[in-house]
């Protein structure tokens, strides 16, 4: 499958700054999309394109932090790099807590900016990998029968076959068959792997 190139979304209301940043990133071989207002960005950018956003913190209409919140609800995986002309600590902390990759002050040096972009790219890669993993777990879980689901939940909760059998009102032998089949469908041998997988898929151990 062909993945779209990693794209930098630059949002700044100052045309000169926007142009300059664009030039800098372009000559560094990065793919860029520019937006001159936060609203334009929210409405126009393609969430399916992997990338990161470089946001000016103070912009008319919607400030950088608000935009970050908005993005978090719409498009959780998009990492945000803030650049600001008047960096104060409290705003920086708020931005970082809300998951910003970095908080850079203007005038920003290319090395800092590129490093932040690299960091964002890594985060995107990680997120992409994690999502791929989750997708495969979910696909496997989808193949389980309801009975196998029940068994899985109890196995993850650390119950022995005998206990599972009594809870489900059947005999230990039958449970062993279900369990073997479930482990095979999930593609794991050890219970520990199953537990890790269940955690990722957010399956709560059944008490």
């Amino acid at each position: 499958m062909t993945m779209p190139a990693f794209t930098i979304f630059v949002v700044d209301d100052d045309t000169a700054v926007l142009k300059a940043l664009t030039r800098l990133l372009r000559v560094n071989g990065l793919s860029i999309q520019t937006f001159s207002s936060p609203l334009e960005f929210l409405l126009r950018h393609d969430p399916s394109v992997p990338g990161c956003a470089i946001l000016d913190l103070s912009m008319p209409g919607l400030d950088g932090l608000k935009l970050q919140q908005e993005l978090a609800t719409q498009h959780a995986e998009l990492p945000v790099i803030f650049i600001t002309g008047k960096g104060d600590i409290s705003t920086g902390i708020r931005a970082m807590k809300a998951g910003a990759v970095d908080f850079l002050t203007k005038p920003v040096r290319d090395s800092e900016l590129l490093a932040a972009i690299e960091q964002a790219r890594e985060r995107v890669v990680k997120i992409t990998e994690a999502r791929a993993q989750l997708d495969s777990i979910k696909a496997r879980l989808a193949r389980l029968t309801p009975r196998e689901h029940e068994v899985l939940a109890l196995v993850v909760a650390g119950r022995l076959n005998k206990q599972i059998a009594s809870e489900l009102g059947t005999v230990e032998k039958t449970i062993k068959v279900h369990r073997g089949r479930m482990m095979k469908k999930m593609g794991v041998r050890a219970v520990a792997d199953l537990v890790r997988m269940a955690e990722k898929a957010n399956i709560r151990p059944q008490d």
Partner: protein
Amino acid sequence: MNDTPLLGPAPAFKARIRLFLLRLKEAIPTPLLVAVAYFVGAEAAFLIGRLSDMSFAPFWPPNVVLFCALLLAPERRWWIYLVAAFPAHVLAELQVGMPTAHLLVAFSTNCSVAVLNAAALRKILGDLPWAVTLRTASYYILVTAVVSPAICAFGGAFGPILGGSPIENYFLCWGQWYLSNALGSLTLGPLFLTMFSDSPRSSSVAPPRRQAEAVILGVALAIVCATAFQFSNRTIALGFIPALLYSPLPLILWSTVRFGEKGASAAILIVAIVLLWRTLNSSSVFVAGNPEANVLALQMFLVGLAIPVLLLGASIDEVRHAEQSTSENEERMGLAAASANIGLWHYDPATERFWATGHCRSMFGLAPHVGLTHFTLINAIHPEDRQVAIEAMKAAANSEQPTVSEFRTISADGQTRWIRARAYSHFGDRGVPVRLSGILVDITDYKTAEAEAELQRREVAHLMRVSVLGELSGAIAHELNQPLTAILSNAQAALLVLAQTPADLAEVKEALEEIEMEDTRAGEVIHRLRDLLGKGKSTFAAIQFNDLIESTLQLLRCELIGRQIRVSMNLGDHLPPTYGDAVQLQQVVLNLVMNAMDAMSATPVSRRAITVSTRVTETGRIEATVADRGPGVSSEVRAKVFQPFFTTKDHGLGLGLSICLNIVKSHGGEINLDSNGEGGATARVILPTPEVDDG
């Protein structure tokens, strides 16, 4: 009796007498003193001489002594003086062997004339001391030399009748009694009264030359009188009587003119004593045959002489007093004016002469000996202000309205003073200015204070600008960071491009062009800041108000974004320029927009907006408004909002709007603050434009 001390007693001598009398007064009750004086007066009269029938002395001082004592004493104590005089009277008259009935009648008429004189004068002229004027002298003569002795003489004339004189002589006696009393009142009375009512100040300042003059005059007068009568016997036959009679007159007039009423009465007293004495000792200019008739003629002559001379003396005193009080008034006025820092002057166009108080001279830095002329005065005025001063004086000379001008003077030592001159004309009958007069006020202190206040106002305005910019520092840093960011990014991009092969030079060129542009932009920000932070002298120049607003809002752009406030500008087309200090007017706009921003801190973000508008008013002036959507202004806030230190902000100094008011006023404009239809406040500044306000 020696004559010199009576004419013009030497001050030291007079002072000694006064001291002696004071001591005596302390030791002896006044009535006793009066009794003694009464007795001494009678003895003196007897010494000068008596008429042959012994009934009357032709000159009778005791009555004058008593009358003067009564004038000086409170009325309720008069009886004590009268009682005290009685033994003195008895003692004196018994010496000359006066019969009892005669003695009693004489005493009672003596008392009555004294009481009548004193009571009438008190009634008419009030209590002592009296100012010596023609009026007081006239009343004095009327009462003491005409009315009162004439009435009392009807009683007095009975004395000799009771003493054995035939009744046919009644009217002769009346005449003698009358004249002897009138003469006493005219000679001794004024002397006593002027001596006793003298204020200590005027008696203590007679210079030695004046004292000598008085003594010489007295002696000369006595000699002339005595000599004239000595030769009389030989010259009468030759018909020289009038010449002899008038021989003392020049000296009497001299004495009167020089010494006023005091000199007049003293001179008359000397003449009276010498002439009476000579006449009674049988050498007289009057040749009626017997001494009584001679004395009567002499008495009438003396009374006739005394009245005009006394009136002349009083007139001279009055004039002299008026002169003195005028000069005192002038001095007082000059002093008061000088202490109020005011100089008085006038100018007579006919003679081209200036008169001015000493303070005027000091204001013009002129030494006391320098003459006041056009040249010296104009020369003392600062060259730049001469035209102003001359124009103002010309205007004053041609108008009935007073003119006011302000100019500087420079003294010889280079000291500059600010003078405010007020001048007005007095027009004569033919509408020609006869006199130009006015005042000069030294306003140097006021001008200095004004300059200092102006300096302080500028300092405060500057401090406020600095503090406002301090508040905006973050926003301004951002404003400066924007171009710097663009410059850095472009520069780094260009460097990177140049490192590549082949280098894309078009890209590099574009980057450099943008660097140049952004550098200019950064420069502009710094330029604006430097103007606002600067303390430069205010410079008036033509200003496009719209440009000023745009530039100010540019400075505030980042702060407005930070506070999430939208700004809409509604700037009128074809605004005429206004004249003013760009920095100060920018401060006004800055303050008003900052206030509008602060007012909306509690306004929901979606509603936050500032509208800045300009337009040309119906009267052709420029109107700029800044409208917000804050809470608006209440009427009590509106009343105080331009007062210094009034603030509605938690951390405000309360100086912003008061400085705005100062600035706008100094530009000849108006500023006000009112609630608007949006629920917020609108600040309105109206500024003059040269086309409208100068035309």
